[in-house]
């Protein structure tokens, strides 16, 4: 019974530590917002550090996607006022576009230190 109690306390402590670590990561990274309006990504270029988060919010009345030019990531359809976010890593940077409106372009750039 005592062993079970220790196991439960340990599991709770580990979960809390992981959660705290996740939160810490969120707090550590900056958030960037890209507004989709008038069929444009604004700002078109986002310069970010690995661990930052980029959030896209669609203010147009028609749906859009945020899709990597190389196909490695994709928000899929975002309806009006929908948001989508992505953590920045070395592999998520590069050009992106809207699959529904291929004339819409944006770019994620890793900050060089």
């Amino acid at each position, binding site marked *: 019974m005592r062993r079970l109690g220790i196991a439960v306390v340990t599991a709770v402590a580990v979960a809390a530590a992981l959660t705290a670590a996740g939160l810490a990561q969120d707090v550590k990274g900056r958030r960037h917002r890209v507004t989709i309006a008038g*069929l444009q990504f604004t700002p078109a270029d986002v310069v970010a550090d690995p661990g930052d988060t980029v959030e896209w919010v669609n203010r147009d*009345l*028609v*749906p859009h996607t945020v899709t990597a030019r190389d196909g490695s990531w994709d928000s899929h359809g975002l309806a*009006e006022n929908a948001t989508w976010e992505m953590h920045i890593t070395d592999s998520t940077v590069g050009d992106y576009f809207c699959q*529904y409106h*291929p*004339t819409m372009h944006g770019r994620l750039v890793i900050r060089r230190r």
Partner: protein
Amino acid sequence: MRKREVVLGVLVAMLALSSVSWGQSPAALNDLEIAHVAYTVDNSDIRYAHLALAVSKNPTVRAFAETMIRDHTAVNDRALALLKKLKVQPQANAVSQQLLDQSDQVVDQLRQLSGRAFDQHYARNELSYHHAANELVEKTFIPKIENPEMKALFREALAIFKTHEQHAQRMVDTVALQR
């Protein structure tokens, strides 16, 4: 067969909105009549897009058609919601009837085409249709509309349809290069 398709393609191009000689001046329409014309223009393009999805196997054409259905439906839904809020109904008029008749002719002509001939003429029709509709909305309808919410919606829709026009130009260029 090829010669027949070329002739039909020319006929489709001649039926584009830009070649219309209006029986009633669009500049003489009131807000509710303009709303009816805009709804008709949207629905005609949705109709062409459904035909394209039924006929074409070209991924460029199909993707464009799916976007037209998605976007024009969204704009129409917003327009209908605004009219409901304002407690008014769009008013049928001679201009929208003329557009409906023209749309019937375009669909009849496109139905007689297939393969590359269909793709090319669908693409060209979309380009000329959006160009003419954008001119009509920007130069005639927006300055004329009195209701501020309706004017704002038309401005928002115009930005969408101008992007469609650019997209249609890319589709024309892409289809022309394909064999």
